[in-house]
């Protein structure tokens, strides 16, 4: 028979408290606000209770849950939250700095248009480079550090650097061919 949620709650909270602290700290670094983390932790809480509330001595089981289990439970819950968000077409995970920086809103209409056209040229230039170099270049241009790119792709630092630099050189060459000069006003 399942233990009543009320009596299980303190054990659950003890397990989750430390983990939630780490999740909040890391998610903050990624600019996710508290609401998304709260929703995630609630989902993890439900899953743990659901999985172990019906077992004998659930307090002991919950107290012994390894961090690796919390890790995979959180990842699974995070994916489900994404699915639900897509299903209801409500973007509930808005990073704090999600707004485009300083382009149109800080510039006059003419300058904004020029920036927009230049941005389109950059996109076309990226699109034109070798496929093997494109993902690395796109990651870099989205602001991801080289170390992260290497880690995510499972590549060595030198391979990552090589593809990135060559890809950026390709982009620059393409832009130069189109008459884009960086040291001149746009």
């Amino acid at each position, binding site marked *: 028979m399942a233990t009543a949620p009320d009596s299980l709650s303190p054990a659950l909270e003890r397990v989750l408290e*430390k983990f939630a602290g780490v999740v909040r700290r890391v998610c903050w670094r990624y600019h996710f606000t508290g609401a998304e983390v709260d929703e995630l932790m609630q989902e993890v809480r439900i899953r743990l209770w659901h*999985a172990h509330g019906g077992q004998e001595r659930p307090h002991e089981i919950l107290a012994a849950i390894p961090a690796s289990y919390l890790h*995979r*439970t*959180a990842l699974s819950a995070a994916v489900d939250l994404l699915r639900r968000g897509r299903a209801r077409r409500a973007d509930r995970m808005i990073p704090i700095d999600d707004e485009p920086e300083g382009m*149109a809103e800080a510039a006059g209409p003419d300058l904004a248009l020029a920036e*927009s056209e230049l941005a389109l040229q950059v996109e076309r230039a990226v699109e034109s480079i070798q496929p093997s170099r494109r993902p690395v270049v796109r990651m870099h241009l989205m602001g991801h550090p080289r170390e992260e790119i290497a880690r995510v792709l499972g590549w060595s630092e030198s391979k990552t650097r090589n593809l990135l*630099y060559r890809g950026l050189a390709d982009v620059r060459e393409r832009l130069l061919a189109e008459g884009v000069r960086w040291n001149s006003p746009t």
Partner: protein
Amino acid sequence: MEQPNVAETERLQKLYAGRVKSGAGSEPHASPDAILAVVTREGSEDERLGTLEHVMACAACHREYQWLMAVNEAGVEAEGSAGVVSRRPWWRGAPMAMAASLLAAVGAAVVLTGVLRTTADRERGASSDIELVGPGARVSGSQPITFAWHAAPGVSRYVLEVQRADGSIAYADTTADTSATLADASRLRPDSTYRWWVREVTDGSEPRSSSFHDLRLTGR
């Protein structure tokens, strides 16, 4: 090789990221599972690169990538602070009782109705929903190795994994076919013990899988 000019790169970044974040992304979007595969480095590199290229050009998918990166990083940190070294994916080697909980907890509504899922004792790789065909337990280390299995109803894609004795992954591939060939057998060490298995690719539900088969390479 010439190092990119910093100011120029920053300018490129601002233009590119501004364009992506302004909503110039394109559909179809990458699936949450595909993005998760990038974050956890599962599946083939080609697939992950394809997903990554879309993610880095689509504001919506990029937010989801950042979200999963954050959760994964938190999990890794939590494991580290708990003294856990292993970074094995959630489904790998986990007792069925734990994995079943992920499947069971579909939503709060189910929980509130008090429908509790019972746990099972069997281990991953002990099931045989997918039947393996070959190779046998001993193969030559000087030739490509072809892994084959019988098709399972309704499965569109399979993941093949060759694990070392400690459970770490020596080789993995994702395919829609019922076979996969490891062309370069030198990726496996001769006279070392491996085991291999196949599971289906799912949208997050409990995947069907094969049992584990032993594999040992003879000298080259």
